[in-house]
């Protein structure tokens, strides 16, 4: 037991942090309709894409937490990137034992296709495979429109690697998270394997880490504004009505981060409580991200309501991330059901 980041993990945070300095202004650029920035994606897809994938699968090694730290750090300043979703999709494919070498060589960018109309977040799903033919209707696929391949979650715990036969780009509430609906009509898959649930658990823990970053970033944004903005002759951060809302957000964000750290560890160590830990982490990270972004907006006053100020970008990112792979309510309820079942057994 030594629950502190290792030196190597501190280095990950530092190196990725350096790539995100101008993250918020890049996000503003995307909001204004400028083209998607090539950095830091190009560097990330070049140098970081193998992290969290075992060397036996041509990855760079390292655990789920190492990758989670990358995602959290990228989310802190909401730097526009497609890397995070790519890495999440790779984790799901990798867990099922599908070949991921192409996705690690920067030649192919992947997306994760899970949600179906009318299905619970973790299934059961309608999507199915017959032999190598995949048939599924997936929606809300982040960065799905321009992905080279989709990691498609199907019924019977199956995962397939396939190219969509039709793509419908939906307009997304979060400009940094453009979503698409993907249709697979007896599409030929590159591979099908079992292990969807395990992969979804890893993907969900990574989304929790991403949301922890959004929460922390929103708090930082709110705090820096509260130090500058002067009312009644003083910076507004001196007033407890302002300061304490941000402190409440810190508590929410810390709650989420503790749970996320543990969930990543529990998954990598096949701990008995790993699934429960993932539900706890995603529930609290979703809550923390939305709550923190709302607090940042409130602290900004009227400015927070403007299109050009940044709080709504954090809020949109928080909402989109919360909805993906199960919202707070679903994860809380799933966790609650699990502990009630366990009690009934004992």
């Amino acid at each position: 037991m030594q629950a502190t980041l290792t030196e190597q993990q501190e280095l990950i945070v530092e190196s990725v942090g350096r790539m995100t300095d101008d993250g918020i202004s890049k996000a503003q650029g995307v909001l204004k309709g400028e083209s998607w920035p090539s950095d830091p994606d190009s560097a990330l897809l070049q140098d970081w894409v193998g992290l969290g994938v075992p060397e036996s699968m041509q990855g760079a090694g390292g655990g789920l937490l190492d990758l989670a730290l990358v995602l959290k750090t990228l989310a802190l300043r909401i730097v526009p990137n497609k890397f995070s979703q790519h890495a999440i999709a790779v984790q799901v494919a990798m867990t099922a034992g599908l070949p991921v070498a192409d996705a690690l060589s920067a030649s192919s960018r992947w997306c994760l296709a899970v949600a179906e109309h009318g299905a619970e977040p973790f299934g059961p799903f309608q999507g199915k495979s017959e032999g190598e033919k995949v048939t599924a209707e997936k929606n809300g696929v982040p960065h799905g429109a321009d992905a080279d391949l989709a990691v498609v979650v199907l019924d019977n715990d199956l995962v397939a690697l396939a190219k969509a036969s039709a793509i419908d780009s939906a307009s997304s509430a979060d400009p940094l998270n453009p979503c698409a609906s993907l249709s697979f009509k007896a599409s030929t898959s590159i591979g099908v394997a079992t292990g969807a649930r395990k992969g979804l658990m890893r993907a969900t823990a990574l989304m929790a880490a991403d949301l922890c970053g959004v929460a922390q970033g929103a708090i930082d944004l709110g705090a820096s504004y509260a130090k500058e903005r002067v009312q009644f002759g003083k910076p507004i951060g001196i007033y407890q009505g302002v300061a304490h809302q941000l402190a409440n957000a810190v508590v929410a964000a810390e709650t989420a981060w503790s749970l996320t750290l543990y969930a990543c560890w529990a998954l990598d160590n096949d701990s008995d409580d790993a699934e429960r830990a993932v539900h706890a982490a995603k529930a609290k990270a979703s809550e923390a991200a939305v709550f923190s972004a709302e607090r940042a907006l409130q602290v900004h006053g009227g400015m927070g309501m403007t299109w050009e100020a940044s709080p709504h970008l954090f809020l949109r990112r928080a909402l989109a991330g919360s909805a993906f792979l199960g919202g707070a309510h679903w994860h809380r309820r799933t966790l609650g059901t699990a502990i009630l079942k366990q009690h009934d057994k004992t």
Partner: protein
Amino acid sequence: MDFSDTKEQAAFRAEVSDWLDRVLVDFPAVEEQSEREARSRSWQARMYADGWLGIAWPKEYGGRGMSPLFEAIFRQECIRRNSPIPVNLLGILLVGPTIIVHGSEQQKKYYLPRILSAADTWCQGYSEPATGSDLAGLKTRADEVQDGWRINGQKVWTSSGHLATKCMILARTDQSVAKHKGISCFLADTENFDIRPLCMINGDADFNEMFIDDVFVAKDDLLGDLHNGWNVAMTTLGVERTSVAFNLQVWARQALDRLVALVCEKGLQNDSYMQDQLGGFEAEVEAIRIGTIRSTSAVAAGKRPGQEDSTIKLQWAHAVQDISRFALEVGGDQFLLAGAEGSDFWLHRYLRARGHSIEGGTDEIQKSIIAERVLGLPRSR
């Protein structure tokens, strides 16, 4: 980042588990205050006799000199089994660690082993009627006389004061300087204090008011330097933020486990609102457990625990409050009838929990600490 035990830690955990399983059969749960106190007294005697106190305290003062992570393992196993709380909790949690930082060699040699054996039982004389959150404004004074000081004043909200033989007390030793600079800390006998229990809203009387009328303390009983009491107090309050939540997280886990049982008894397992609420509580109680491991690990690695401390205190207070409030809601009017099945525990626990956001630094103080130290916002006071 590693949450699993090293070989050494696993062996220690097995040893702790074995001991607890053996001795806890002698300590069945009791509800009534005097029974709880008697149980705490014999529990501490048993812990002391078998060498489980002061695990992370220096060896030369009666401890075992181990890493705080071993202390944490011991605590985790106690929590898992719902073990009692030692009678000299405040001595173990607050006074001992403060003496370790500020005490003279003589004080450490004398007092620390006596804290573990409960030869002395301690309380903490900080808050006063006119100074709660604004602790530095305290009015109790200590005037220098031949060979020591004479203390006059009044303290309040003194937990365990009625059980204590000793009091770590703050008093003003210099009236002429700024309020933080004229305070000293003393290790006083409570023999000549007039201690009056205050009845709490749940019917317990484990906090007190203390009237101190010309009580003499000797020169050797000054803790830390003269007029340096504020620094001593900051050490205690820093320790308090962490250790209270660390040691009393058992109240959160215990309350949640009982709530789960209550929901099942009521046949509400399939009610999605219940599932949602219990899932949220489970996540919060887990976050406290993990947060304490993170914070202890930081200390063990020689890092100062930072933002975690006030955060954990807030998480803990609200988890216990929210869980016990929800249990009353689930229990319905049955729980508001004295003597009804389950009512004693839940009403008692709920009412007691209202104090968790007040004791050991109010919610408002904790949030201001986070605002200033974590977020770097300007000081409001």
